[in-house]
């Protein structure tokens, strides 16, 4: 009996992955006390993560096709399933992590903030599971507007996130207008709005199609915080709390990067526009790698440093995609996992001790050894140190780049890693080799449970780096299955 229900759930897993967070968000808003609503959010997020990981495992490791032939028809492809599982896991960890900071954000936003995180994750998951470009646009905007709302409602103790929310709205709104225009152009040129039809479409107007695809990517790059379109992210995240850092800096950026990866994987394989599209992605990626690394080196705010390191990592994702090969797509997926793990560990470790500036890191290892360990793992991964998942992602990119003759891309990745050694090393030196000149809060001020997600991410950063076989297989299978598995 239970087995039958499990099979039924598996058959409708794509739909459940979207509906579960939405139901959780709705239940939270009517649940009353903040702690009760947080428990509901945890239950919904963990349930969604279990469904997503199980579905991805069945699809990508066993290569079977468990999607139902009836009901709401969602489009399932390898990259979408891989990224949706990653988004669901990050959502579950982020929701658990923000539990200790619910009261910090005030009484009214307390249940609203995790509800917005759930709704946003549902939006990004929907965008990863849709075939139609119009539905993709609507889902992306749902995820993005939830992130804007999350930033705005958490500007309680500090007003700066409010300015960040407005920047998000204006930049993201401009991006969404360009994206909508691009969808219209691409649909007209390709003769339809189905994303999976792009690689095989007889594109009558390649220039129009190329311009449309470029505008869509531009709109998504704004939301993913790719340089030079990332003016919103340091303002929104740099002085925000745990909700904004984890809900927008980690979950939102990951969602946008995942959708960008999926769309680019289809668009770049369209013969008429692929070459130009690849050049545009490579240019944007190279710029983002360099700008992110330079800004991270100059940053004195810990959260902003992490934002800029993420910008650099997003550039690596774009460079991987620009290769236009299954190896490149697999490298992009590995970069996404590396970004998610490092970002969770970094933000979680910093926010556990309410550390914002680099000066506050002095002697942090003695006050908060677990949180310092999480930050160290995140920093090592960001600098691409061997035996971390960050190294794995960058190594895959270098390998795929050299294979395609893109030596310059490999060189850029190495430069970004050297910059990572500089700013990551600076963090480690402050935490372990300096004495605190002022007394700051340690780990005791928050629930220990809030630190657990950061530690899990930190352990995953190292463990996957040591034994990467399963994840590499899953990423390789996902990139091969990108042509779609829908009934």
């Amino acid at each position, binding site marked *: 009996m239970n087995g039958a229900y499990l099979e039924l759930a598996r058959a409708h897993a794509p739909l459940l992955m979207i509906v579960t967070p939405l139901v959780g968000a709705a239940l939270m808003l009517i649940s009353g006390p903040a702690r009760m609503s947080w428990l509901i959010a945890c239950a919904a997020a963990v349930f969604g993560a279990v469904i997503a990981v199980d579905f991805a495992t069945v699809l990508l490791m066993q290569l079977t096709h468990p999607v139902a032939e009836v009901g709401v028809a969602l489009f399932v492809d390898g990259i979408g399933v891989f990224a949706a599982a990653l988004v669901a896991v990050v959502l579950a960890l982020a929701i658990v992590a923000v539990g200790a900071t619910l009261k910090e954000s005030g009484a009214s936003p307390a249940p609203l903030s995790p509800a917005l995180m759930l709704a946003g994750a549902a939006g990004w998951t929907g965008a990863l599971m849709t075939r139609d470009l*119009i*539905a993709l*646009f*609507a889902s992306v*905007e749902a995820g993005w*507007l939830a992130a*804007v*709302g999350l930033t*705005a409602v958490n*500007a309680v103790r*500090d*007003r*700066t996130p*409010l*300015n960040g*929310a*407005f920047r998000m*709205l*204006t*930049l993201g*709104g*401009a991006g*969404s*207008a*360009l994206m*909508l*225009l691009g*969808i*219209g*152009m691409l*649909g*007209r040129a390709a003769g339809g*709005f189905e994303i999976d039809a792009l690689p095989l479409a007889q594109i009558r107007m390649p220039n129009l199609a190329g311009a449309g695809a470029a505008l869509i990517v531009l709109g998504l790059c704004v939301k993913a915080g790719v340089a030079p379109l990332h003016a919103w992210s340091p*303002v929104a995240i740099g*002085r925000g709390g745990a909700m904004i850092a984890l809900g927008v800096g980690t979950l939102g950026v990951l969602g946008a990067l995942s959708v960008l990866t999926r769309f680019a994987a289809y668009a770049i394989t369209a013969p008429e526009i692929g070459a130009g599209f690849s050049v545009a992605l490579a240019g944007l990626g190279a710029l983002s790698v360099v700008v992110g690394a330079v800004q991270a080196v100059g940053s*004195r*705010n810990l959260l902003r440093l992490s934002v800029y390191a993420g910008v650099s990592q997003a550039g690596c994702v774009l460079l991987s995609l620009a290769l236009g090969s299954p190896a490149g797509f697999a490298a992009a997926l590995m970069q996404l996992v590396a970004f998610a793990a490092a970002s969770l560990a970094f933000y979680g470790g910093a926010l556990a001790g309410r550390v*914002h*500036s680099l*000066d506050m890191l002095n002697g942090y290892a003695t006050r908060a050894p677990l949180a310092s360990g999480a930050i160290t793992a995140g920093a090592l991964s960001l600098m691409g140190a061997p035996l971390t998942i960050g190294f794995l992602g960058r190594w895959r990119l270098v390998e795929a780049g050299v294979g395609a003759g893109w030596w310059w891309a490999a060189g850029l990745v190495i430069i970004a890693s050297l910059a990572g050694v500089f700013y990551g090393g600076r963090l480690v030196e402050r935490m372990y080799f300096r004495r605190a000149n002022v007394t700051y809060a340690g780990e005791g001020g928050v629930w220990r449970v809030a630190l657990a997600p950061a530690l899990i991410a930190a352990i995953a950063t190292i463990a996957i780096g040591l034994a990467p076989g399963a994840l590499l297989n899953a990423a390789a299978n996902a990139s091969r299955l990108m042509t779609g598995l829908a009934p």
Partner: protein
Amino acid sequence: MIAAAAPLSLDPALAAFACALVVIGVASALVLTNAVKRLAGLVIAGIGALAALAVLGAPAGALTAGVAVLFAQVALGAAIVVRLQESYGSVASSEIDGADLEDDARGSAS
């Protein structure tokens, strides 16, 4: 024998007009300093994108989705502008950014 002239179409002109609206709106949203005017720029860009979709022959569902998203953006934007005025006492981005820099400096000093 005189060949029949191709029927005149306004589509290219309308498409160019719609694209111009998008460009003007996006530029306004990014360049202007007043938050209300930036929001108005977003509306112009959104209307331009919707007009372009209509000219390019997108289905009705696309227009509906675009209108819904534009409405949500404006509603959220209006709420944020009101909160900006309450928190900063201004809706000019130069003054808001200046206040943030002061907050940053105060935070670093403390």
